[in-house]
């Protein structure tokens, strides 16, 4: 290996870098935890742990001021991998250390995959109701629904994050494009008049921009003015908002569309029907003993058709999704399931097993060496 690369690898594998990463992680944990009071759990988690850099606004500039959780995790992972290449000795007596550190790498990579690819959503089901989708708790989407086909709807989903960037949004396979005229991350709607919107309900709605909220018990009302353009010609400007009820409609290219801002939906090839919800209490008290939902799972393609009981610590796992009992309402007529999809769910279990196994091996190796050295 060439000298420069070898030197770089040794620096990357150094214990100093490990300690530096641990120090950064500690600072992140302290400030991320304190920020939860001010920002709410979700926003603080996103800001400190699910970002590459933590930005700070100086005038019109957003400048990264501290590495985020992803950066620290990635750097630490590289440090550990480099240690395997350049620092660790592959000797029998170091087997435990190697296994433990491999477990750590697996934990970090698993967490990275969970943060980038995992998702959590909610499925509120009333008794007797059937749903084949769940909705994100925070993320929104602009849904453009082509309703022309009598057999199905074709949904084009534009994530709300796309609205932060001004300019034209081209839609693959669609005869029109969208131009975001204005976007408010939070607003209050009222009956009134609106100068920007020309079509749909918009001209009869007044919009007051509000500062975005981040606390867990408040929601932003995302509002945008969308110019629908077909062949360079404007079909009109629609006001779309998560605060509006029913979707609005328009025609373009001879097809009918509905447009709405709504919680981001995740569709499944199967459906769940809530057959029964139970809210058991201890006799003579109001203290909850058990919450459980009996659901019917149906998938047309595979013919899967069965009942499942979901209760505390007993979720339903199907097609990589886990359905937990999360909440209830409407006088026990509504059950809310949390749907978790985590492609790396096995990583923490496996990595913990490997770390413990490595430590146990290391301990017994030292113990046996100690016993052997002890004077008889």
């Amino acid at each position, binding site marked *: 290996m060439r000298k420069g690369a070898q030197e770089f690898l040794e620096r990357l594998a150094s214990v100093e870098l490990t300690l530096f990463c641990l120090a950064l992680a500690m600072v992140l944990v302290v400030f991320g935890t304190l920020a939860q009071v001010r920002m709410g759990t979700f926003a603080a988690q996103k800001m400190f742990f699910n970002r590459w850099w933590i930005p700070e606004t100086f005038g019109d500039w957003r400048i990264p001021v501290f590495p985020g959780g992803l950066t620290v995790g990635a750097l630490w992972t590289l440090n550990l991998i480099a240690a395997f290449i350049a620092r660790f000795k592959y000797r029998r007596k170091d087997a435990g250390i190697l296994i433990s550190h491999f477990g750590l790498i697996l934990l970090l990579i698993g967490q990275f995959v969970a943060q980038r690819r995992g998702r959590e959503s909610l499925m509120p089901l009333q008794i007797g109701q059937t749903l084949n989708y769940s909705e994100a708790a925070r993320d929104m989407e602009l849904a453009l629904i082509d309703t022309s086909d009598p057999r199905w709807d074709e949904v*084009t989903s534009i994530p709300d994050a796309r609205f932060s960037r001004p300019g034209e949004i081209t839609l693959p396979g669609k005869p029109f494009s969208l131009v975001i005229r204005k976007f408010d991350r939070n607003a209050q709607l009222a009956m009134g008049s609106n100068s920007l919107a020309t079509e749909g309900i918009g001209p009869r709605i007044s919009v007051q921009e509000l500062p975005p909220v981040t606390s867990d018990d408040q929601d932003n009302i995302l509002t945008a003015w969308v110019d629908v353009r077909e062949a360079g010609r404007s079909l009109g400007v629609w006001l779309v908002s998560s605060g509006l009820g029913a979707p609005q409609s328009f025609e373009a290219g001879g097809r009918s569309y509905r447009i709405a801002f709504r919680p981001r939906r995740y569709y499944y090839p199967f459906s769940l029907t809530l057959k029964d919800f139970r809210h058991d209490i201890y006799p003579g008290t109001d203290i909850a003993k058990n919450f459980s939902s009996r659901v019917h799972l149906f998938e047309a393609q595979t013919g899967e058709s069965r009942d499942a009981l979901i209760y505390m610590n007993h979720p339903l796992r199907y097609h990589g999704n886990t359905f937990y009992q999360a909440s209830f309402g409407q006088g026990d007529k509504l059950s809310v399931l949390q749907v978790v999809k985590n492609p790396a769910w096995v990583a923490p279990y496996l990595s913990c097993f490997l770390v413990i196994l490595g430590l146990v091996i290391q301990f017994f190796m030292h113990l046996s060496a100690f016993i052997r050295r002890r004077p008889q």
Partner: protein
Amino acid sequence: MSKSVWILLFLWAPLLAGCEDTGIHTYRVPKEAPASAGSMPEMSGPSAASPAGGSRPLSWKVPAGWQEQPLSEMRMGSYRIPGPNGQSADFSVVALQGDAGGDLANINRWRGQIQLPPIQENDLPSQSRRIHPAGRTMLLVDFTSEPPENRSRRRVVAAIWSHRGETWFFKMIGEAGAVGRAKPAFMEFLQSVRVRAGG
């Protein structure tokens, strides 16, 4: 720049590329049931969408004789109410997030629709009353216009209900005869309103 830095950047590039998903996706889904339930006696409509909980439909019982009208972008429910002597009234259910501009602004807008002058905040207690259909607190208003000669009197009866950060408007407007005759059915309608999901 040293070679080590280039190697570091190379190693980081794929990770940096995996930033927030801003991709546009298209997929086919089975058709959803329309908001209107045709001529069924009980119908429902989705409320203002909530980021936290998805759509929250209300259900209600439609009084006899009320004729369903097509829903518009804002209307969760829409009925024509036939009255005596060819008169008629229009009934609508509308939901908006937040306080939708406040009670006074909405009440004055309705007064304007029947050519009545606006009232002041101090007048609200005397011009409205609190009602409690099915245990819910709603603000009820009832105004009748003083029409110019040869024009029929117009009347608006409306209830405002704040529910989990949304404001629901149940409004009946039309010729005074039709509205007056339909008012008991209007009150029955309010009694029949149920929260169907997310409540």
